[in-house]
């Protein structure tokens, strides 16, 4: 681990101005559960760590007439315990509750979960300089790739590790970003980018921008949602495959449905093709499995991760059927 300085800004504006002249030499820290591990393992060596937790009032869950606003520094534990979230947005509740362990949920934050870095073991090996770290190749492509991407790979085969992201995208969440150029609000789905856009990053956030808030629209009548995460052991594991499903359902038919998979691609993966097949039809196990298979035809498994395709089918049909 190399030495670094800690900056404790009092406002978000201070963050954006603080970081303006120190490009690439500073890192923003929310809960720190991922960032500190990266520093300790010497994956990154920032000169300054900007502790966002010193900014007051970034931890909140507020219900308003247009929906719910969640402060970026709201802890995952708080998110998982919140009654409103649990009752109205079960997908988000289940996703927050499925993250890591109670200790990590106490430290980890909603914003940090969305911005965390991949857990690819090549990326996390300090001795390996892969494409994501500015090197010339993706070691997973012909290497050990049991946990890697079956979709959207190419230059880099990481899977996005966030549990909240698929759930929030399924719930049509937006995020507010503070930037020196002004503040913007965008759909969360537009936040994430594939390796072919920029192999070194997983999202559009510039170094001097801060993800400040998450907004989820009000739930519609008969809207239901769920997040189902398949892991190898009983708890404390990253998803092999996860599925977030949201839709309005009655009489065993989805009038509309949104499906987002986690653990299969470098970004949360929307399954539009499957949604279209399922929509308006009487739901059966068979229908959902066929729809998933159809949608995953474009998947390109590597040597060791083909089983993820099978698992996606199972995880997804079970998630969809659980909403009937």
């Amino acid at each position, binding site marked *: 681990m190399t030495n670094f300085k800690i900056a404790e800004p009092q406002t978000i504006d201070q963050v954006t101005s603080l970081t303006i002249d120190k490009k690439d030499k500073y890192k923003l820290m929310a809960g720190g559960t991922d960032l500190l591990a990266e520093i300790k393992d010497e994956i990154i060596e920032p000169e300054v760590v900007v502790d966002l937790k010193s900014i007051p009032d970034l931890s909140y869950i507020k219900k308003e007439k247009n929906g719910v606003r969640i402060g970026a520094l709201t802890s995952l534990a708080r998110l998982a315990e919140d009654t409103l979230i649990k009752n109205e947005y079960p997908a988000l509740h289940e996703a927050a509750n499925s993250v890591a362990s109670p200790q990590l949920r106490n430290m980890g934050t909603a914003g940090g979960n969305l911005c965390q870095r991949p857990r690819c073991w090549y990326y996390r090996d300090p001795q390996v300089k892969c494409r994501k770290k500015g090197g010339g190749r993706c070691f997973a492509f012909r290497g050990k790739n049991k946990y890697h991407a079956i979709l959207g790979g190419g230059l880099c085969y990481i899977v996005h590790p966030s549990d909240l992201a698929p759930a929030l995208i399924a719930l049509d969440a937006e995020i507010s970003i503070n930037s020196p150029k002004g503040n913007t609000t965008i759909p969360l789905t537009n936040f994430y980018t594939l390796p072919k856009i920029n192999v070194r990053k997983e999202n559009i956030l510039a170094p001097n921008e801060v993800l400040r808030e998450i907004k989820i629209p009000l739930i519609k009548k008969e809207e239901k949602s769920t997040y189902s995460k398949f892991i*190898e052991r009983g708890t404390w594991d990253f998803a092999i495959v996860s599925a977030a499903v949201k839709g309005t359902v009655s009489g065993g038919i989805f009038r509309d449905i949104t499906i987002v998979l986690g653990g299969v691609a470098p970004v949360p993966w929307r399954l539009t093709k499957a949604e279209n097949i399922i929509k308006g039809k009487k739901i059966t196990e068979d229908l959902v499995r066929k729809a998933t298979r159809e949608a995953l035809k474009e998947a390109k498994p590597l040597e060791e991760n083909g089983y993820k395709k099978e698992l996606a089918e199972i995880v997804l049909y079970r998630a969809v059927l659980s909403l009937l």
Partner: protein
Amino acid sequence: MRKKEYFADSEEASLLYREEFRDMKTEEPEVAPSPEKDKFEIIGKSTSRIDGEKIVTGRAPYTHDIKLRGMLYGKILRSPHACAEVISMDISQVQSLPGVKAAIQLKKGRVTYAGEQVAAVAAVDEKTAEQALKLIKVEYKSLPFAVTEEKAMEEGAPQVRKRPNVQKFNEYTRGNIDKGFKEADFVLENTYKTAVEIHHPAETHGSVAKWEGERLTVWDSTQAIFGVRDGLARALKIPASRIKVIKHYMGGGFGSKLGINDYTVAAAMLAKQANKPVKIILSRRENSLCVGNRPSSLQTIKGGVKKDGTLTALYLKNYTSGGIGRGDYCSEPVVDLYKCPNVQVEEHSVFTNTGASRPTRAPGHVQGTFALEGFLEELANKINLDPLELRKKNYSTKNQGDKETPYSSKGLNKCYQLGAEKIGWKRRNKRPGEGNGKVRRGLGVASQIWWGVGRAGTQADVKLHPDGSVEAICGTQDIGCGTRTYMATITAETLGLRPKDVTVKIGNTEYPWCGGSGGSTTTPSVAPAIRDAALKAADYLKKMAAEKLKAKPDEINITKGKFSNKNDPVQSIGYKKLIEELRKERKFRREKVFHGEYVGRPSGFAYNTFGAHFAEVEVDVETGKVKVLKVVGVHEIGRLINKITAESQIIGGITQGVSTALFEERIMDNTTGNVANPNFRDYKIATSLDIPEITPLIVDTVDPRINNLGAKGLGEPPRIPPAGAIANAVYNAIGVHVREIPMTPDKVLQALKRKEVD
């Protein structure tokens, strides 16, 4: 001919296991012990750990906790290459960094795995030491390497050591294997695979070294304080008498801390150079690279059986890899566990450019039992026989691998009976995989054989003070098994006192000699030695009490702090009163030391421990996920010494066994030459939610001659059968044997596909 050693330089640790248990013959005891007649009040019951409160409240000092005045922190530079020549090294720059007090070069020539130590520094704090490592300039010439078994076995693969990568190290024959196959009604052949596991004790490896003139004191997280002392003496070329090794408490070792470590030597060298104490604690990452592992295995078993279940032949071919170290002997279960007249074994080591193996809680037996017990399960199905009946049918009362020597005691039949009752064996699927639905249940069984004898020459003292206080002293170490507690229990039992009346002293090489705590030897070594010492102390006290009570010493009974005349129990004197009077009469004014020893056991018998585990699992046949619901672990270990800690051993063994069966696997990357998962994120161990309901049961028999208590060891036995029992339960649930551990969902799904093809 029993075994053939092919290696000139067999690894010390493997030898320790091999020779000490199978081939070691002890002295004949002058008087054969006959422990069956003894009846005890405390021994065999549950006594809570006397140090339990200290441990759970965080006050027990571990090596990680040692802080000495002026102490420096050492860090080790390790090779980033799986194979390379160290062309040059320059450590001169490190001294320019303020706070750095010592630096040493540790390697010249070739490094043969990524993580091998090449240099070390000591500085005033850990951070400075880490930064100093970056100032060491090493020029490597990297060379081709092979880090996986597949790669190492390829034609023309880079040679890992100065010998071929694949090398036979064991062969065994009894009877005639071809004859055995001819006599069989059915012959089956399958291949079973087990992954490399890392020990990963909760407390990572570490040492603190301090010189006072020519004398060296080392605090070490070790299973063998005397082994560390003697190893240091050899490495530093100083007399053993000048070295003291201390270990008070430790957070696990599981075989990875059985001897001298190179980082301990480095700490001593740095401490000498800096003239200050030096502490080196390895990181979790380092623990994944360079302090041992359980070798993998690829075992093909071919066996013959008659229609009635009689085994006629067992053939095992094993390829096992322990990195640059040797693989494990996995053949012991095939050779000894079941009655079979025709057995043939050949075992090969596969060398790879990875850290050397070390004994891992029941080395070889975990892998060998998984394969053999899986094979028997499939064989039983072939002849349509209850797998438990197949095991009973081939019950052996003699150790066939050890010249047909009869077992001194064997309670495996009783284990089968108790376990089958407890798990409800009748509930199993009569035909594997006969159930319906997406989640299926199954039951499985696996048996176990292990050694469990003591190490002759183990010494212990019981010291009586003129104020009546008592010490039990032995140079052993408590590696978490409750050694302190039973030393107190046995001494108290023998002297008619309570465990809390006894002060226990262990973990220091200045105490009487005791071997390393490995191979389930600690209890059957230390318990008889301390019992011997305590009996001598009791004899002295009986003699003194007899004088007071005007009786003969052998007429004196000791119970509950009182000495009484057997023939006239009204005639009695209390322990305290006796001591007080002796002191006043000037007969007992100085401390008295009674020296005990475990000298050995009669020859002509085989001494082994046995057990059977029964598992119940639930398998999701769509996702391939296995959930272990229940494990019943039944063990025969001679006399039970302390019920509660024995049960803890079984629970611990099963917990690790579940982890082995479902999760643990070190993954090597052929491109980088590195361990892909040197952390607890990617090297998955069972979490509390993965641990099933566990029922430990103990068949309390007394071995009639193994030692003066009739007790065998229990450290390793419960670690052996869980993976086999769980895999067999999975087979019973889904109708296909996975044949590979860990049984992760991808592998279970693959096995289910094999079933469709079959």
